[in-house]
């Protein structure tokens, strides 16, 4: 749906030496001379560093002096430097979407260091391609959206409560939705915390009290999120409380739904022998003081975790939990003999490693097994347990008798994680936990603006890690709420209503639910929900969808420019 161009493109091309990074391989002056011959290029120059303050002011000067209406910078990657150059354009009065980059460093000079001729040819082509796209670029607007200064926290465990408190203390209203009748989550089921042996109930009650007494926090227990519509700043949330629907308008959403404990049905005699427990059940016995003195206890690690197929991940916290519980039993009953049968021991961090050392000092035995030779547990008629296992250090089978076998099982995703992921339109990873926007750079954001994740909903975590993430999330979510408005992305799709046949293909394809049919059956995009992937445009049977800033014409022109000459 290209509107007729009113203005003739006047493209300015700035080719960066990047010191010797580009200039040492690519003949920059040749590229500049070549750029001047490309149709619609009004000006071209070389810079030592285009991204330096000198380079930036040269761009701004040239825009004014040569009346440029498009800018191309041939330098590094748009993934790092596009925002900088776009700002320069904007400061010179040019819409920042009238800018394009040619990546002649990361994808040219650095990758073809020993072929300067060919690298120079490629750099020219990349500039030509960027100009071909730039000529067709159109200015875009980033609409401003108001943000409701209130957050929804899903999950009332330690992560959710911490995030809620932090946001409330910053002055924002918070609604906590908790499925259970009480706050607390998994922490409520624990005895003592690793690594400092603090009483879990004390730690919990202080934060529960703080949450309950905070005027800014509204706690909805026995409640579940039923539906979420809308977008950052304006989520329309339906919560079901005591079977009645409750409507909330929320600016941001925090997913803090935690995890469940894996139940190892039919593994190592669990359920068929009452002396085979999970660590979670052991915690309960320790908490209530119901653990009678055992002569021997054997703990088996990685039960149902790090599988070849199925749950492939390491649950991280189980090694620490086993060592902590072994130490607690040692404290209670010093004569009890303890064995921890492990595949690989992961006591990461200083404190956990210290617990491990302490356990060794106190005589807890550690036996390493291998995944090809897992332990076997059998019981005789009196219920006595026999554990046969391969010892990878002795390189032979060993046999142990025990009163109690404790299985260390992983945290697994909540059963309804998938349901919630569909309601929120945020992804789950291959292991079924919520999946962040970027594994390194955006660890607590979702790709969807205004929705964040913390705690074990994301992956198995201990309390301190959950708290750190919760505090991180609270500050991330506070940014749009404090600003009171956000700028929506301009790179979104638009529908040509004259061409739309109402077939609904795009409605089904959009992963964010950004496209709906209107009252006359024609597709309509809610721009602020659209994330700009463009799959709808590439799939529309009537070719009725235009992807802003990545139009069919622009992409084709860029590709075909590579084949000219």
């Amino acid at each position, binding site marked *: 749906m290209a509107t007729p161009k009113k203005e003739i493109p006047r493209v300015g091309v700035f080719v960066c030496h990047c010191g010797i990074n580009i200039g040492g391989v690519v003949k920059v002056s040749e590229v500049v001379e070549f750029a001047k011959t490309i149709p619609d290029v009004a000006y071209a120059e070389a810079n030592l560093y285009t991204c330096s303050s000198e380079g930036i002011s040269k761009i701004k000067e040239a825009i004014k002096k040569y009346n440029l209406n498009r800018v191309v910078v041939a330098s590094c990657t748009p993934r790092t430097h596009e925002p900088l150059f776009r700002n320069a354009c904007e400061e010179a009065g040019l819409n920042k979407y009238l800018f394009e980059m040619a990546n002649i460093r*990361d994808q040219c000079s650095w990758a073809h260091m020993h072929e300067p001729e060919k690298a120079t040819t490629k750099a020219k082509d990349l500039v030509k391609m960027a100009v071909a796209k730039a000529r067709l670029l159109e200015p875009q607007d980033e609409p401003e959206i108001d943000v409701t200064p209130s957050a929804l926290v899903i999950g009332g465990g330690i992560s959710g409560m911490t995030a809620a408190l932090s946001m409330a203390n910053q002055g924002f209203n918070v609604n906590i939705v908790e499925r259970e009748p009480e706050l607390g989550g998994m922490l409520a089921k624990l005895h003592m915390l690793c690594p400092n042996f603090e009483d879990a109930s004390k730690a919990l009650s202080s934060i529960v009290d703080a949450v309950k007494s905070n005027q800014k926090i509204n706690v909805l227990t026995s409640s579940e999120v039923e539906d979420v519509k809308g977008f950052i700043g304006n989520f329309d949330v339906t919560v079901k409380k005591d079977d009645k629907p409750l409507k909330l308008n929320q600016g941001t959403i925090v997913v803090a739904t935690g995890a469940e404990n894996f139940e190892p049905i039919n593994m190592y005699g669990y359920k068929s022998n009452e002396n085979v427990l999970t660590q979670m059940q052991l915690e309960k016995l320790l908490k209530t003081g119901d653990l009678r003195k055992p002569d021997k206890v054997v703990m088996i690690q990685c039960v149902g975790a790090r599988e070849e197929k199925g749950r492939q991940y390491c649950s991280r916290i189980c090694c620490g939990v086993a060592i902590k519980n072994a130490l607690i039993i040692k404290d209670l009953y010093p004569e009890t003999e303890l064995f921890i049968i492990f595949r690989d021991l992961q006591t990461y961090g200083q404190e956990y490693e210290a617990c491990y050392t302490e356990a060794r000092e106190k005589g807890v035995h550690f036996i390493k097994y291998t995944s090809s030779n897992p332990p076997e547990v059998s019981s005789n008629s009196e219920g006595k347990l026999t554990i046969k296992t391969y010892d990878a250090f002795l390189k032979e089978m060993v046999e142990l008798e025990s009163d109690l076998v404790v299985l260390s099982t992983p945290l697994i995703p909540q059963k309804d994680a998938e349901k919630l992921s569909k309601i929120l339109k945020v992804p789950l990873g291959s292991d079924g936990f919520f999946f962040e926007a970027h594994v390194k750079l955006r660890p607590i954001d979702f790709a969807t603006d205004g929705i964040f994740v913390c705690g074990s909903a994301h992956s198995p975590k201990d309390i301190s890690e959950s708290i750190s993430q919760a505090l991180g999330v609270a500050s991330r979510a506070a940014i749009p709420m404090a600003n009171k408005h956000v700028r929506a992305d301009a790179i979104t799709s638009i529908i040509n209503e004259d061409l739309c046949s109402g077939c609904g*293909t795009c409605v089904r394809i959009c992963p964010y639910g950004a496209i709906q049919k209107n009252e006359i059956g024609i597709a309509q995009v809610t721009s602020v929900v659209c994330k700009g992937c463009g799959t709808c445009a590439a799939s529309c049977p009537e070719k009725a969808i235009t992807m802003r800033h990545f139009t069919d014409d622009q992409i084709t022109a860029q*590709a075909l420019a590579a084949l000219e000459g």
Partner: protein
Amino acid sequence: MEFEPKIVGFLCNWCSYAGADLAGVSRIQYPPNIRIVRVMCSGRIDPDFILETLIHGADGVLVMGCHPGDCHYIEGNLHAERKAKMLRNLIAETGLEPERMHLEWVSASEGARFAQLVKEFTDRITKLGPSPISGENPNKVILENLLAAKRTAGDFRLRVIVGRERELVEDKNAYGEKVPQEKLDELLSEAIKTEYTRNRIYNMLEKESLSVRELSKRLDLSTQDVLTNIVVMRKKGMLGVERIEGTTPIYMSLEVR
């Protein structure tokens, strides 16, 4: 002079383009033949772009996206895969080597993998030689066929099947039924063959009005095949009779939409 293939890459911003950047940052060297076009998601890559690029003489087109499960936009890459599957089938009909179009997954951390894949693809295309429709004397038959293929890929029918594949195979329809994958693949390849044949007829008649016999000769199709399709295409309003010579109708293409 040694043959230097012209290769165009369509890469998604989040994984594969980042992987290409990482290859550079790591100073991993690979052949300089590829020219990369960045899109936000591999799902954005319309079959049209790939066919248009091949029609203009690219020796190879490399499409890259995030690994399944890693897509920044949840599953745009899987849509890209479905489009690639359709394209492979369609290009195979034209006489152009289908391996000139290739799809690969590269993550942002796989700089070495990116370089390796580009090297392998460049080597393969070098071995394959120049595209038959590049250079001074392009193979006119294949070029015509590709133009028909482009029209085919742009048609409603194929775009609907490809666009709705996930929904048809994975979700239940209004009647609570799912379409088995094999069944859908069958439907797709049948649709590709039929629509491609019709577009060849259409393109041929666009240039020159012809009889069934003449069409059958020029397109190397049986008269029965040509006639069956002409009947359908007339009903769809794609063709008309220009004149009748003796008793033989001479057909012409009509402008569609």
